């Protein structure tokens, strides 16, 4: 490699704009088209409408021309309802006809949101409805969770579900309610969420993650996260005191207790009293979940129009993205397994990268934030160059650090579709405002 190629080699490698280096070099959208966003921040930048439109077009194509047709063909059970996500992402070939409670709730959410927010195509609503009809008959009694796995026909394969089975189904029902106008589904969503919250809030609650195992009534970051986002979406439809309680508690738990005061990262698991356990092997910082939780907190701040909450969540979001960055190969790690020793779990999940996109967009859209803009462009380029393979039916959902060895046996239909839809919606709003920030919070 001569000096010239060395320089170009370095320039082609993102040295981490977000983490403080320089190098917006692999971006798919030309940075020279960035314009000063003088209305919001003299130092800030925004994307001109022409670029926003191109991004929108790319995302629309991925959603409607690739992802949804592939879902239709390989994953959706048009005959019996539900989603069979065990398929080979390369060929679409189905690996099993099994269905999971998590994936039913998530899929119901996807197709209901699609119908409600994008195209009122009865096909979408019907997919959501048949999923609902597949999973609802298995609804457990109070204080219990849905069985986790089923065969294609609905026979239970695994009795033992976890709290997320209920929560994703509640989220799906909530989205179905708004899409269909079915008030019963909304009430079911509220009841299921509230019941799960009361179960979680009890000291007898147990959770089997490595960090929570053996703890009585553990407090777990991803629980707050899913409670928060489920409750927020219900509150967008109806003013429920139970859901307000859940969002208040979740925001407080996340920002005041899980946020480690020493290193300003979110700890994965606390004791029931919201204290970090003594044993060091539980001192895990979940950057991936943290990034996701913090954009959801920003989302809630937008709903509340609470600029202080938005700013706090935004600052923490940036910190988590910065810390989670893989400065050598790009992308973001999900778990700092030992904060003191700087030891990371090195695998890369598509979901983490896509959650970064959503948060960055919130910053761009509502704060005209230059950091958010750089982060969006860089992450978007990284995803496209690593997780998308020509000829594959679906994107890669999880891989090793280098995204060379990756999972091929699962279709990820939740984080992926959510990021596509949320990006499209954000692009639409920004295009409507000619690229300007929302001005929702005035000058942050």
């Amino acid at each position, binding site marked *: *490699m*001569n*000096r*010239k190629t*060395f*320089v170009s*080699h*370095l*320039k082609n*490698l993102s*040295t*981490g704009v977000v*983490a*403080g*280096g*320089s190098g917006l070099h692999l971006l798919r959208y030309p940075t020279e088209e960035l314009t000063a966003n003088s209305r919001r921040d003299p130092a800030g930048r925004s994307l001109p409408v022409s670029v926003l439109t191109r991004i929108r077009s790319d995302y629309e194509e991925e959603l409607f021309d690739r992802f949804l047709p592939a879902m239709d063909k390989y994953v959706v059970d048009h005959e019996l309802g539900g989603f069979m996500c065990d398929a080979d992402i390369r060929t679409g070939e189905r690996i099993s006809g099994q269905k999971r409670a998590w994936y039913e709730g998530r899929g119901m959410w996807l197709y209901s949101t699609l119908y409600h927010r994008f195209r009122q195509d009865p096909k979408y609503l019907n997919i959501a409805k048949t999923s609902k009809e597949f999973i609802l008959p298995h609804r457990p009694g109070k204080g219990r969770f849905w069985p986790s796995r089923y065969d294609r026909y609905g026979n239970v394969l695994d009795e033992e579900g976890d709290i997320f089975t209920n929560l994703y189904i509640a989220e799906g029902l909530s989205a179905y309610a708004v899409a269909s106008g079915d008030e019963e589904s909304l009430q079911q969503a509220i009841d299921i969420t509230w019941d799960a919250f009361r179960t979680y809030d009890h000291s007898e609650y147990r959770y089997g993650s490595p960090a929570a195992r053996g703890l009585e009534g553990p407090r777990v970051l991803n629980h707050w996260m899913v409670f928060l986002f489920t409750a927020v979406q219900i509150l967008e439809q109806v003013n429920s005191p139970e859901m307000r309680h859940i969002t208040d508690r979740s925001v407080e738990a996340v920002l005041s207790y899980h946020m480690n005061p020493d*290193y300003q*990262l979110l700890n994965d698991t606390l004791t029931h009293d919201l204290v970090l356990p003594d044993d060091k092997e539980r001192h895990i910082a979940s950057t991936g979940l943290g990034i996701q939780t913090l954009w959801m907190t920003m989302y809630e701040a937008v709903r509340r129009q609470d600029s202080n909450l938005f700013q706090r969540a935004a600052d923490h979001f940036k910190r988590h993205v*910065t*810390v989670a*960055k*893989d*400065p*050598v*190969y790009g992308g973001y790690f999900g778990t*700092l397994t030992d*904060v*003191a*020793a*700087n030891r*990371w779990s*090195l695998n890369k999940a598509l979901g983490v990268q896509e959650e970064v996109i959503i948060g960055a967009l919130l910053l761009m859209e509502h704060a005209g934030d230059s950091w958010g803009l750089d982060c969006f462009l860089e992450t978007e380029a990284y995803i496209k160059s690593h997780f998308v393979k020509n000829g594959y039916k679906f994107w890669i959902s999880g891989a090793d*650090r*280098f995204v060379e060895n990756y999972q091929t046996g699962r279709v990820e239909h939740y984080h992926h579709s959510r990021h596509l839809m949320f990006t499209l919606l954000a692009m639409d709003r920004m295009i409507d405002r000619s690229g300007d920030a929302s001005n929702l919070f005035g000058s942050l």
Partner: protein
Amino acid sequence: MKRKEFFTAAGAATVGAIGGFGFGRAVTSTSPASSTGSSPITTLGGKTLEEHRQKYRADLFDRFLPYMDDTVIDHELGGFMCAVNIETGERESDDKRAWYEGRGMWVYSFLYNNVEADPRYLEIARKSKDFILPLEPDNGAFYATSFSRTGEPLTGPGDIYGNLFVAEGLAEYAKASGEMEYYDKATEMILYCFDRYEDSSYVFRDNMGLSDTRVVGHWMIFLRLITQMLRYRDNADLEQIADRAIEAILELHMDPEYNLHNEYRRHDYSKPDGEYHDYCNTGHSIETFWMLMDEAARRRDASLFEAAKDGFQRHMAVAKDRVYDGYFFELRDVNDYDWTVRKVLWEHEEILIGTLLIAEHTGDTWAKETFADLDEYVRKTFTRPGYRFWASGGNRRLTELNMVRAEHYHHPRHLMLNLLAIERLIERNGEPTGIFG
């Protein structure tokens, strides 16, 4: 006009203004820095240039040098005894080391040459020279690692760095004293070391399990010595070694997969098997790249400067401790992402030199901001009120410091080089040199 000719012409036109660049005394500007196009640097991190100048002078003249005088320098027998408690100044051993003699000789000679021509400084350097030169083995071996206060070897032969640091000290001493035989001696030592290094059986340290070695740290020292010596006097042999070093730094040690240095390569530059296969000493690489930027300034080679700057920034970006700030110095395995999480002062000071160097030439905003942030971090974490010396290192958060060692090379070098850079900026009313257009 070809690019090379252009830079030669530009260099000749501006040499008076920038003191031949490098790290010499500030020279009054004879022509405005018209080639930069950047706005003048008036402050760095909220401090004026004059405040930075005063800060560096106080660090150097009110703290570091008096404490060196009191506790480290052997005024009687010559040499430096660095095993000193940084809090109390109490000496824990009288041992001297070849590395530290060369380094100390360089510091006091450079001080005399560039900052203050006080005969006391030259005398300290001279006594160190008189201490260490007679101890050079006559059998071709490298200097012993350490010696008693009176010069008895306490160990067998040390490593190549002992000889190279002594050569660096001698070259600078020659400039200070005018005794050019020591410049020639330094040249001879460098060429001898390079011959040894070029031997295909050369092994850096026997206990590393490497059969033959190329080392970034070696190229770094060769290059730095030569940059300084060529500024003083042309030498075709040294120029050739510098060319080799540049190629090694930019290409042969660079892993094309992850764009970081491998500190160790085999003699043929293939990657060694075992634990050093993906080993990157980010600290060394950062240090090496600022030295390469300075060599680029000497050569007036803009593309070389850009390449070195990119390497500098790349290694910094990777080495950053994103949780607690500061920089890690050792990535034991790039692909396993296995870091040594202790912090060393020298790496941070090398970054301070490199960022100020970039700022001085280009007015680069990133460099100015990084310099200012890191200057604050270093002063907050590596120092303690009432301590005689800055800590040479410590744990990741610098809550526990290395207590025994007066660091008398990287630290004063950073103080002096940055003091001189700030003074040059003041002389140019904050204008970057613009030597690279």
